[in-house]
């Protein structure tokens, strides 16, 4: 199937086709949006601002039970595989991030939890026609309508959505709705490209990543880390909101005589992230932690997977309570060369 158009008047019908499936879509939550199952009777809407928490949480939940057990016993019970899931309204940057993170979960061993969820999930993207103040995805090889990691891309053309299938999962979803769609044709394609081009022009902030992975190891003891870290509160905002951050911790939780082992997001900005049982901490201060965050994204990940683990979504810049600005830091890295 080629690119199609969905008239916005048929949106309700389109969402009706999805009923019966588990769909996560952006839901307003105060003045923030988050991915959630819309409340009973509420329609899905694609009229939203960039959600606070990236949709990586759908495939890599913040807390995930690995198995359960009884104290004093040895039997384990692992949870059943989850259900099929449609992720609606995913920004291209976040979709790229899911694809990037997958590299980690496919590395040395295949992670059954992540990959199973990934397999069950259809990612429907929506091109980002109103980029935010701190968006810089083009600097990282993405763009307002980047398709990497998406099964289906949607572009808002005003009175209709442009639907571009990218994978079999995407195509089968479009097949379900084929009765509602019409060929996009050349005109549709042009309108789409025009919209995307306008969006690209709106992006203000840029990062020059050229050579950064190579420079970083040489800046190991550079004062810029101390300077960046001085104001850092050591909270997990930047990492928890980052679509590519994927560090996790595994903990046992006990209630009464029952327990579960679970995996939960961790953050390299926390002191106990690398705290050893002995009390020794190889990253004892915020300087080392701040340095790690940048290095992991812009150096270690590159060495291992040949791609920068940052998609330029701008969340860390938007939400840092003390204005630690990744873009500034990268500029300083370049300048320090």
């Amino acid at each position, binding site marked *: 199937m080629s690119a199609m158009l969905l008239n916005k008047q048929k949106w309700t019908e389109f969402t009706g086709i999805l009923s019966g499936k588990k769909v996560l879509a952006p839901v307003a939550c105060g003045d923030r949006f988050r991915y959630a199952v819309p409340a009973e009777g509420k329609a899905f809407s694609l009229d939203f601002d960039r959600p606070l928490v990236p949709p990586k949480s759908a495939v890599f939940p913040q807390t995930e039970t690995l198995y359960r057990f009884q104290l*004093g016993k040895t039997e384990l019970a692992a949870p059943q595989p989850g259900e099929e899931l449609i992720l609606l309204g995913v920004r291209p940057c976040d979709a790229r991030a899911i694809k990037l993170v997958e590299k980690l979960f496919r590395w040395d061993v295949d992670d059954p939890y992540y990959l199973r969820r990934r397999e069950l999930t259809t990612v429907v993207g929506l091109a980002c026609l109103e980029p935010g103040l701190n968006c810089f995805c083009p600097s990282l090889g993405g763009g307002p309508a980047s398709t990497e990691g998406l099964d289906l891309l949607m572009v808002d053309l005003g009175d209709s959505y442009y639907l571009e299938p990218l994978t079999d999962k995407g195509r089968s979803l479009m097949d379900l709705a084929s009765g509602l769609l019409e060929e996009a044709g050349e005109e549709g394609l042009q309108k789409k490209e025009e919209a995307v081009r306008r969006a690209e022009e709106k992006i203000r902030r840029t990062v020059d990543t050229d050579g950064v992975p190579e420079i970083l190891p040489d800046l190991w003891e550079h004062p810029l880390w101390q300077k960046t870290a001085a104001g850092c509160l050591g909270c997990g905002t930047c990492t928890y909101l980052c679509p590519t951050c994927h560090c996790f911790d595994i903990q046992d939780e006990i209630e*009464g*005589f029952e327990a579960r082992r679970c995996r939960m997001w961790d953050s390299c900005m926390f002191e106990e992230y690398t705290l050893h049982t002995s009390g020794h901490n190889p990253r004892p201060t915020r300087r080392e932690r701040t340095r790690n965050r940048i290095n992991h994204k812009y150096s270690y990940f590159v060495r291992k997977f040949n791609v920068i683990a940052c998609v330029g979504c701008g969340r860390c810049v938007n939400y840092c309570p003390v204005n630690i600005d990744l873009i500034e830091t990268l500029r300083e890295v370049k300048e320090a060369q």
Partner: protein
Amino acid sequence: MTEKPKLGVYICHCGINISATVDVEALTEYALTLPNVKVARHYSYMCSDPGQLLIKNDIKAEGLNRIVVASCSPRMHEPTFRKSIQAAGLNPYFLEMANIREQCSWVHEDRTEATIKAKKLVAAAVAKVRLLEPLEAREVEAERSALIIGAGIAGIQAALDIADAGFKVYLVEKSPSVGGRMAQLDKTFPTLDCSACILTPKMVDSANHPNIELITYAEVEEVKGYIGNFEIKVRKKARYVDFDKCTGCGDCASACRVANRFASEFDEGMGKRSAVYLPFPQAVPAKYTIDPKSCLYLTKGKCGKAPKCAEVCGAGAINFEQTDELVEFKAGAIIVATGFDVFDATGKPEYGYGQYPNVITGLEMERLVSASGPTGGKIKVFNGAEEIVPQEIAFIQCVGSRDKSVGVEYCSRVCCMYTAKQAHLIVDKLPEAKVRVYYMDVRAFGKGFEEFYDRVRREGVRYIRGNPSEIFKRGNKLVIKAEDTLTATPLEDEVDMVVLAVGLKPRSDYRTTMELLRLSQSPDQFFLEAHPKLRPVDTATDGIFLAGCCQGPKDIPDTVAQAKGAASSAMIPLAKGKVTIGAQVATVFEATCRGCGFCVSICPYSAIELVTVNRMGHMIEVARVNEALCKGCGSCSAGCLSDSIQPKSFRDRQILPQIAALGVLR
């Protein structure tokens, strides 16, 4: 410590006390499903010898290392089972009891409900016992000496008792002489024996006793440590008179350039003394002291050409170069006998004290009637500028007692009787005088008190029930405005002298003592005893005891009785030479302690202090527990924001699983 827990759960039938209501068999089966439970048994009387043997045998045969006994209250048999598991080689603190009798079978009827509850209680005990730690009670050596603060009758008596028992006593007195308030009194009620006559021999004994080191004109400056091991610093103030050289002849006092110019403290300001003085003729030690606040040489740096006292002193004892001296010693116990002050009658301005010289306090009256007093025992007062022998005399009781308007709610216990005594003495000395007593209630509760009160009334002293509202001057008479509440008659009574029966108050410097020893106060501001009924001489801090009026108003016999009680309590650690330190005490995890000192403020026993430690080159403060002082209440722990201080056996990590075990069975 790292040994994996192996639990035994022992369920008692208590005859049928438990088994009639709780299904002990089902309970036993349930216990076996709980984590780490290796053995679970039920038996008719777990506390019996065969019952205990059952446990002991299992510990040996099955290698059990934690025991749960589900039976009666731990308040009943915890010591029993601790002993028995200890006999089997286990640490006695590896025991937890589930109270399925007092708090289960005896209070519930429904067998199903009671069994469910018993299961929860056993589950909670299992949850906790798995995480208990081995503990040990310790003994430390005790210093065989006592410190007594205050050498009034209470301090002297306690010192003599302890010294007679063969222990060293440090008796520290703030003023230049021992004797305290009792030395100021004339006669004592109700027997009328002379206060000085019965006191002075004891004063002399306290100075001469080989086991007593009397330190007068000195103040305790620092007390550290705990029962058995108090470390004490005392500041001996400079007397400017060489203690060893002074013969007590008194030449200096007569020669003093400002002789008899200063109000005598001993005579309540009614008599005068010199700058160099002996507080009173019978003072012990009979050594003169120069008051640095009144001495010309010490205040102005100059006294004529040369100080006269030094010139006349044949012994050459005057030494203006003398300085304060610090004495340090250790003591195993401390008795606080700091006494009292009397109520400041200017606090009741309506009575005109301080305004009219013929309105005086009861304590001033003592000095007035005393043969050794400023008037040689003659009762005379100034009425304006004129000295008179009063003929119309009124006493007003409860001045600064039982009076919320001045913040004193308590009864001072001695004023009724000292008023009766003083009334008697006046009648005795001035047979023509007319004496009346304004009172609220007369409290004559002690041995011989009521009889004495009766005698005084028969001697013609008139008791008028009514609280005077005002005293003012009319002509050369004082007028008391009052109402006789028995006849509901308002009256204006013209008199020559008024004696205010002032009540007893905590000493004005009580706060210093309180902070020094971290004592507590009762609402009346006197020092608080550990228990009002059963530990009336103890304080919250082990090894510190109270005697006399510092704990609350009392008369001489009560003071002496309490002093003797305090002495015998203080002698327990002294006689044993050892003190036992409880095992279930708080302990600090210094790595997480932030040194805020919340626990230090919270601890009622001053068992916690902040110490500076070197943490990788940084000097930081952390809390440290003195295990000898800690009672294991755990209040510190609940107030610690970083959970760094924890009472052993009641740690958060031991209690939280208990909560969880009770919750999951909902």
